[in-house]
């Protein structure tokens, strides 16, 4: 599903952010990405949601070398990848419900087809009462939950989550964690970037640690 072969990455002519990274995330796996702040977790996810190409090595996604994708193919691949961005990336002029519906809408679905699904998603993340509120009027944690609902609403094959529990209280963090576990049980591949060592330890899932450049739990290729 996701295959990194000796991948290196840097921004422009800047220093290497990722170096010699090789791993394989099989279909349906749940994988943590850990590392200190600045270790390159978000950068790695960025490569996975096809916002950039590696400066060295090769990345394969759904069996395709990502450097060969056309712009349209990138768009179609992204429909199979749900992302919870670290900075949420919500559209401020849209309501929470419209933000959640975005992946469905740009894929050509009509409102009648997804309205119930979107409402249900927002209910699930505890924002049933804030459906028609715009992001600037939401708290950090609420925005994060809108971002999570948007990432999973289209039932993607891969879910990438960048610190998805960063802005919520422990109880909500636990709920969100359960959501991703549930998604994984349904067969979705989940890549979960976090620096919450406790969370990683408790869940006993394979981990790619960026600081040490090692991985554990049998994920390494």
């Amino acid at each position, binding site marked *: 599903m996701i295959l990194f072969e000796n991948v290196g990455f840097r921004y422009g002519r800047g220093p290497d952010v990722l170096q010699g990274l090789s791993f394989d995330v099989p279909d349906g796996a749940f994988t943590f990405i850990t590392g200190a702040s600045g270790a390159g977790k978000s950068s790695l996810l960025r490569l996975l949601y096809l916002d950039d190409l590696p400066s060295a090595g090769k990345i394969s996604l759904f069996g395709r070398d990502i450097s060969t994708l056309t*712009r349209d193919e990138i*768009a179609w691949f*992204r429909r199979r990848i749900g992302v919870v961005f670290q900075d949420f*990336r*919500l*559209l401020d*002029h849209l309501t929470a419900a419209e933000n959640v519906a*975005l992946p469905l809408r*740009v894929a050509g679905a009509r*409102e009648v087809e997804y309205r119930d699904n979107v409402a249900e998603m927002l209910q699930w993340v505890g924002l049933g009462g804030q459906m028609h509120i715009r992001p600037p009027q939401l708290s950090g944690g609420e925005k994060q939950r809108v971002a999570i609902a948007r990432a999973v609403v289209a039932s993607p094959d891969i879910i990438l989550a960048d610190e998805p529990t960063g802005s919520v209280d422990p109880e909500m963090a636990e709920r969100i964690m359960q959501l991703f576990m549930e998604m994984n049980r349904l067969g979705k591949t989940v890549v979960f970037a976090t620096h919450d060592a406790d969370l990683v330890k408790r869940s006993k899932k394979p981990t790619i640690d960026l600081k040490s450049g090692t991985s554990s739990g049998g994920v390494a290729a």
Partner: protein
Amino acid sequence: MRNSSLIPFRSGGGILMALIVAAMAFLACFALAGALGASKLAGAWTDGLSGAATVRIGAEEGAPEQQLDIVLDILKSTEGVIDAVPLTEDEVAALLEPWFGAAPELSDLPAPAIVAVTIDSANEPDTSIVQARLDGAATGAVYDDHGEWRGRAASAAHAVRSVALGALIVCALAIAAVVILSVRSGLSAQSANIATLRLAGAEDRYVAGLYQTRYFWLGLIGGIVGCILALGAMVSFDALSTVSRALPSLDLSGYWWFLLLGVVVFAVLVCVLAARITVLGTLRRGA
């Protein structure tokens, strides 16, 4: 509840865009009106002139009666000539009146004899051959099929049409240029939102579609406003032009409505196409 637009367009910029489109549509209507008026006028002239010719027999030649008979014989035996009738003195006087005033003693003056020739427009006799035959009989008569006038009317009409076509192209280019500038600045102001749409799985043509819809409406509103203003201006122009037959009368009844519709469709098309090409080009280059 209706879905919000995925791109928060600013209404101020839209009004400005529509105004510019309106101005260009207004000018395009007048360019078209000019071209059609010129064509119609030239058509009226040439229609009136073709199918008819005149032969003038100089007054200074001797024995005018005899000369007239020879000329009539030659004309009637020419292929393509349907009829040849000499004008009476009164008719000649009427023709000359605008230049000489009513002259009761016209017969005292050496007036030219004029023969009105009806020719078959489908089979016009060759001017130079007719003239050569007249010269051969030493009549000093001059054959005139108004070819020079017809040519001048046609080339004047052609010139006006070319200028009008040029003006239409300039209007289209001006609309396209304004759309391109406005879409470009919109894209850079909205770059973060557009990046988010792309990350959510939108194809470039989906983003282009959002702009096309926006510029479709701006083009439509601008085009309609411009055409209505042009129509109003033309109606008042038409009222004036009936005073003088020399001005082309703009017959607003028939195909004019289609032409105004054509200007609106044209403006919309230019807006939509320019928006699409700009968005697709900018996104591809920014990748």
